[in-house]
């Protein structure tokens, strides 16, 4: 079974036409990979489907915009994957 990062990296690669080898756990989806807000909706849809969760994008966006949480917490891929794992675990609990 693919790891969370492998699944997310493949989704980003396919959705945004970014070579898979350019995507690392340290990549910032927006600053390093150039993912825009519309493309991120496509990514969120694919992640929601793949993991059976609902990424709380509205909450994250609000927290970042209000300066409560740095964007890196959600948009650096290793952090994004950790959040996904938490959501999957919460759903299973």
């Amino acid at each position: 079974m693919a790891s969370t990062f492998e699944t997310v990296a493949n989704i980003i690669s396919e959705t945004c036409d970014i070579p898979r080898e350019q995507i690392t756990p340290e990549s910032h989806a927006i600053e390093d990979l150039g993912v825009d807000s519309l493309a991120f909706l496509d990514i969120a849809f694919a992640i929601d489907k793949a993991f059976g969760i609902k990424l709380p994008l509205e909450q994250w966006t609000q927290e970042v915009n209000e300066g409560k949480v740095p964007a890196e917490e959600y948009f650096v891929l290793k952090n994004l994957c950790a959040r996904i794992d938490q959501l999957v675990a919460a759903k299973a609990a």
Partner: protein
Amino acid sequence: MRLEYFQMIDRVASFDAAAQVLSATSTVPDDSPVFEGHFPGHPLMPGVLLTETMAQASGYLVLGLLKFSHMPFLAGVEKAKFRTFVGPGAGLAIEAQLVHHGSGYAVTKAKIRSDGKAVCDAELMFRLMPFPNDMATVMRAQAQAIGLVPEAA
């Protein structure tokens, strides 16, 4: 259906919140300036307006399901297929089904049939945003005018 005013839905035939499906009907007008250009002497409903029709049916579906808490703005069209031609006077049966309600977005599948034939289908993505200004009032009025059930509004 008033093409020039982007009023693509004549009537909501049914809205099933549990099944997350909306069915609507519309009739392509006999005359419209649109047909003067698309195409001269061979009037055909443009694919972009069929897409808009699917988007509006999907939009009313989302409005009904969310009880007008957010406005759905079309953000993406995937897998759009136009399977047959539609001309002036054609009756259309439009169906929209919710595929996924994400955080800040929704995805639907929609299709149009005419005389029992598949006309077009697509998967549509909407960004869900707060209503700008008094747009909620306008959308509620339009939804009511086309028969979106009051309890959904």
